[in-house]
């Protein structure tokens, strides 16, 4: 077949027309732009890497099934590197340039504190998982919703376990000297006193303290029969467990999820020092006494086997991120629109939305959607496949 000038001209016109019609089709099915902010590199990137695997998986799964009302989900990721300044820049870019329809993250408190007012100003529907209590305020930030527990819910679960299940009467509360630790100790002490318990010792210790023996000896002298620990410093937690073992003090440690970190295990002088340590966990990601996960979670794990790497991360990061993407997709599907008001309106009507992480409920007045009774205590030394075993004493 010979190539003629007329043939090339008709061919080009045909290609151009096809391209134009494809462009119209794309415009009709404009993707749902989901902004995703997290630290993927740098010192605080472990949670972000775990979350990210699930965000990518959830978006790909929805897109493979045809998207939401025919619209694909486009995840626009920005690596904040754990730096609030970078998170702010990314937030402004997402809200004003990329014009995302909704945003998930950032996943650490400092960054979220900085970016929440920005997303509020641009009215971008925003999903949060960080624990900071005052981050969620429907009056100040009507666009911001949290579908994970806050610090108060952690404290409630810990206090309930100490007072109602362990039946402890005299409490010691110890935290580190970071902003988080200092605040958590203050709140915990106040709540124990409000509940009628006797706080016999409370202390804020340098997160890098080499020897915690003096503090534990004081707590023991004061008569404490349990220690509430509020520190995410694995070094401090391990040093306290070592000191407890060395002074031969047989009391339970209950508190922050970092008590169960694998990094703590590496720093313990004896594995036995990890006994009688209970951490805040979530029923959806907790093995029961028979070693079984809730059916919904187990079905998910069976589904993602070989597709999402689970052995080096925490299960709750994975299931929470899946819920984050699905919450956006569901809001667009139900409201039929990706407008800010439509998504926020859909979330405000959510009642017991069956997420993998928990059943989420939002109202216009309450944007903390995670159910408190889903927050439970787990055995710190029981981690496998990213989940822990339920602490003894629960019904």
């Amino acid at each position, binding site marked *: 077949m010979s190539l003629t000038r007329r043939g090339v001209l008709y061919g080009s016109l045909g290609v151009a027309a096809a391209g134009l019609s494809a462009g119209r089709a794309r415009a009709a099915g404009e993707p749902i732009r989901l902004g995703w902010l997290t630290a993927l590199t740098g010192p605080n990137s472990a949670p972000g890497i775990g979350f990210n695997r699930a965000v990518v998986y959830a978006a790909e799964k929805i897109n493979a099934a045809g998207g939401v009302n025919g619209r694909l989900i486009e995840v626009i990721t920005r690596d904040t590197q754990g730096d609030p300044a970078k998170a702010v820049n990314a937030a402004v870019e997402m809200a004003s340039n990329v014009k995302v329809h909704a945003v998930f993250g950032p996943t650490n408190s400092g960054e979220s504190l900085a970016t929440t007012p920005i997303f509020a100003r641009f009215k971008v529907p925003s999903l949060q998982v960080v624990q900071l209590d005052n981050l969620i305020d429907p009056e100040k930030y009507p666009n911001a919703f949290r579908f994970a527990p806050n610090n108060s819910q952690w404290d409630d679960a810990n206090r309930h376990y100490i007072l109602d299940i362990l039946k402890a009467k005299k409490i010691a509360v110890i935290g580190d000297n970071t902003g988080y630790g200092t605040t958590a100790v203050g709140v915990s002490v106040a709540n124990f006193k409000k509940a009628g318990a006797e706080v016999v010792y409370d202390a804020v210790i*340098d997160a890098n303290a080499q020897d915690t023996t003096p503090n534990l000896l004081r707590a023991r002298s004061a008569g404490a029969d349990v220690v509430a620990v509020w520190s995410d410093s694995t*070094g401090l937690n391990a040093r306290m467990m070592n000191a407890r073992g060395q002074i031969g003090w047989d009391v339970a440690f209950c508190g922050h999820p970092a008590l169960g970190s694998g*990094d703590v295990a590496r720093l313990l002088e004896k594995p036995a020092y990890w006994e009688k340590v209970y951490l805040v966990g979530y029923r959806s990601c907790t093995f029961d006494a028979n070693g079984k996960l809730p059916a919904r979670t187990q079905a998910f794990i069976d589904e993602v086997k070989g597709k999402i790497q689970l052995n080096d991360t925490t299960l709750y990061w994975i299931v929470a991120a899946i819920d984050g993407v699905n919450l956006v997709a569901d809001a667009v599907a139900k409201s039929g629109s990706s407008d800010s008001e439509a998504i926020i309106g859909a979330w405000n009507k959510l009642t017991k939305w069956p997420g993998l992480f928990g059943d989420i409920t939002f109202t216009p007045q309450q944007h903390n959607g995670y159910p408190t009774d889903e927050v439970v205590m787990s055995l710190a030394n029981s981690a496998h496949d990213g989940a822990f075993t339920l602490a003894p004493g629960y019904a």
Partner: protein
Amino acid sequence: MIESIISYGLAMGAAYALIAVAYNVMFSTSRVFSFTAGALGMLGGVCGALFIDRLGLPGVVGLLATLAFCAVVGVVTEFVAVRPVLRSLDQHLYVLSTLALCLMIQQFTAIEWSTVPQPFPQLIPVDLLGIRERFWMPVVACVLVVGGLELLYRHSMIGRAFLAIAEDNFAARALGLPERGLRVASYALAGAIGGLAGFASGGIMLAFFANVSPFNFYGFIPVALGSIGNNRGAIVAGIALGLFQQAANFLVGGVFSSVAVFSVFIVALLIVPQGLFGAPPARRV
């Protein structure tokens, strides 16, 4: 309680004293307080854990590799952060340059090593006279360094050359001493001493990138208290600091022990501004 104060206090005091000696060794040939001293201490712990725990090298080889690595970091400090600012010592630009290098080392370690403390390997599985390795090792390291420096300074030509430069830089140079080479050598020596401080105290401090700050701050106190440039003063002040800090941990507890340490430090300097072992400055008339 007394046992804990003495064991922890002596061990940490010896580590602070070694960092103070590293400060002094660098200062003596350059008149610069290099704030990479804390980074050298941190690297001592991290390299020890890396070479012995992760790479599986024998303890002695791991120690020598750590000292060599930290000596190289000391030399790099001299080239990168000290030499370029030596001409304008009176502007104290070295504060910025050495702190910047220190932060770079710390951040690099955080990214490449870990952001959480890692265990430091136990080298000798039995206690020495009933004392655990993590308590006696810093003290033994301190004694060896003091003895080694005394031998170097009193009985070797290179040691005397160090002293000559420390005493009068210009006169030593006029006499033909290789001031630049000796300065590089002193930074290598300081690197090894700083690394030894971190290695020897690794059982207590662990292999942790954030150890830079405690080494820098608490290591500088013996420098000031023991009189700047005075190694013997630094050792005495370092040991005293360790014991006082641990006693304060028991007596006032928590974060208040740091407050107690710095309060005593400030009061001591108000009373003897030249340090405990320094002569009052001569008044020019």
